[in-house]
């Protein structure tokens, strides 16, 4: 394979990505691209970003050998990249720090974000407080109801949370609404997108900010194990934690990369969010990618036990990595994810997010097929405190 160097200048990963937005948004995206092109190579900007990641986020996050669980599974050794130990409890903050710093350089004092479960909303509200910016978070009205704790968390951090009543009143509608806000208030507003989707330069920019995960992992693996892992596994909703881990490994073809989507109640049902396994290419939210849609090209509501994976699209770079067979994408059901959640709690004393539990669940199936000297590195993208109500409910327990 040639050295991987994507996206192209207009944000394409093969046929995917690009800029599919109304004319009214084009100039805002042009300016963002210009500014980001400049600052991504600016020494002072990079220094400030690294400094914030170290002292505010608490990086580097360790790689932890889940020894007891590995022994129990009886195959490959399972290593966890502990993004759950970041400030705010997930990988999301790597990106919001980066974009907020860029917003400051661009002279924007108002940031907006979309959120599903509220994790990206919390990460955005957090950095807005840190840098003294006004913050508005759009959240589907249905999600506001389901995620009351995170709504309150964002409010405590000083953000305004706007419930979105249109469409299916979930994440995709929150994204539509945030875009509408941005196009109306573009002079003073920076839109912090939470995943590697949206129009160029977002998929590239969010990836760049998240690659700290994989870059650290490469160094840590060499230091501690003297070699790189055989397999990388990460969950994929929009795909930001997965691309953050995968990207620095793309040119190293000896490392297998597996993205795990939410199979919900099963890939053979209509209740899942397995975009790459079951979707078809199309255009949504500013980019061409795989989408869960009906025959008329209308976007369909998805389902997952984990709100963070419950999205009908997926980052365009994952679409391309799937098509060129550089990464594999598989599905894990709600029940399998829940089982892995409990396993990690019991064997390792680590409570994973339900999103990350999908990656763990696939590793639990896959590890026994490998030998004991092989290494699987899983991106443990977030911690599970936020999911306790869901887990209790799934287990038939009232708190």
């Amino acid at each position, binding site marked *: 394979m040639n050295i991987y160097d994507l996206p192209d200048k*207009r944000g394409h990963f093969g046929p995917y990505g*690009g*800029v*599919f*937005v*109304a*004319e*009214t*948004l*084009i*100039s*805002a995206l*042009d300016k963002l691209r210009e500014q980001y092109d400049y600052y991504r190579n600016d020494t002072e900007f990079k220094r400030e970003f690294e400094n914030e990641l170290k002292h505010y986020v608490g990086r580097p996050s360790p790689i932890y050998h889940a020894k007891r669980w590995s022994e129990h599974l009886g195959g490959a050794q399972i290593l966890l990249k502990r993004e759950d130990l970041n400030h705010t409890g997930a990988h999301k903050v790597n990106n919001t720090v980066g974009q907020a710093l860029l917003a400051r350089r661009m002279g924007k004092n108002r940031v907006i974000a979309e959120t599903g479960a509220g994790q990206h909303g919390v990460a955005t509200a957090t950095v807005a407080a840190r840098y003294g910016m006004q913050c508005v978070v759009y959240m589907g009205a249905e999600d506001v109801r389901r995620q009351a704790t995170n709504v309150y968390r964002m409010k405590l951090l000083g953000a305004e949370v706007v419930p979105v009543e*249109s*469409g*299916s009143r979930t994440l*995709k*509608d929150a994204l*539509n609404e945030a*875009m*509408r806000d941005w*196009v*109306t208030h*573009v002079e003073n507003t920076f839109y912090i997108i939470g995943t590697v989707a949206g129009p160029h330069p977002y998929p590239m920019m969010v990836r760049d900010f998240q690659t700290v995960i994989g870059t650290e992992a490469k160094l840590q693996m060499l230091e501690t194990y003297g070699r790189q892992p055989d397999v990388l596994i990460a969950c994929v909703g929009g795909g930001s934690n997965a691309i953050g881990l995968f990207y620095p490994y793309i040119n190293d073809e000896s490392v297998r990369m597996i993205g795990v989507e939410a199979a919900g109640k099963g890939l053979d049902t209509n209740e899942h969010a397995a975009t790459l396994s079951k979707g*078809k*290419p*199309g*255009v*949504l*939210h*500013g980019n*061409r990618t795989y*989408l869960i*849609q*009906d*025959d*008329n*090209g*209308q*976007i369909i509501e998805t389902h997952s036990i984990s709100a963070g994976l419950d999205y009908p699209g997926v980052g365009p770079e994952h679409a391309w990595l799937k098509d060129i067979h550089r990464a594999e994408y598989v599905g894990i059901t709600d029940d399998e994810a829940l089982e892995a959640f409990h396993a990690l709690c019991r064997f390792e004393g680590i409570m994973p997010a339900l999103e990350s539990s999908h990656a763990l669940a696939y590793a639990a199936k896959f590890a026994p097929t490998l030998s004991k000297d092989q290494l699987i590195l899983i991106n443990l993208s977030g911690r599970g405190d936020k999911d306790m109500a869901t887990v209790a409910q799934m287990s038939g327990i009232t708190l």
Partner: protein
Amino acid sequence: MNRIAQTFAVLQSNRKKALIPFITAGDPGPANTVDLMHCLVEAGSDIIELGVPFSDPMADGPTIQRSSERALKHQVGINSVLTMVSDFRKKNAQTPVVLMGYANPIEAMGYEHFAARAKEAGVDGVLTVDYPPEECEEWVRCLQQHDMDAIFLLSPTSAQSRVARVAELAKGYIYYVSLKGVTGASHLDLKEVESRLAELRAAVSIPIGVGFGIRDGAMAGAVAKLADAVVVGSRIIEEIEHSPQNELLNNVRNLVADMRKAIDKQGD
């Protein structure tokens, strides 16, 4: 000469400006659309923009979003929209129909299949909100092969280089979005429209329509003074939304007729 060019030629020779209303196909129900289209023509419309409902209308404000949702409740998709255009054509062979919507329903059907069927149904032009010129060369070629016009948007923030690129690709007319934001906003700045249109005319040879923020006859008249066409969307949708079924056609007819009158008065 196709229907859109023909329409503008006749208007120009009569020193009149075009009135282009927008409605969403299937709003409030699928049975209303063809009647509403005829009613728009009777009230003095020159071209009809027919919205193709989409689940995620990112560039639209709440009024048009709601119209899309009402239509989708009745499962109105691209296939039923094309059937509506065919039905409309049974009694109307002159009035151009422009489909306006988002890329994904077209992607789902496939360019070639969509273009062939749209042409057969009697569609004259297509405006795809989220296909900027950089991303749609193949699509534009496909429309051209089927003798339909690719209608494009320009906005107050469009850089000069983009205006030139759009001018190359666009046919029929160009839709100048007169303000920043989404459809249905209400703060149109006539002075700015005037100076911007003067710049656009230097680069664009086809007619220019102005829309976004036109709420009444007075505003329609004022815009008609500056532009070749006046596009009215959200205000009509509001009328549809608030009208009981038995007053629907009357209310829409009165509203559009008022705008027609105001536009023609401006030309006197």
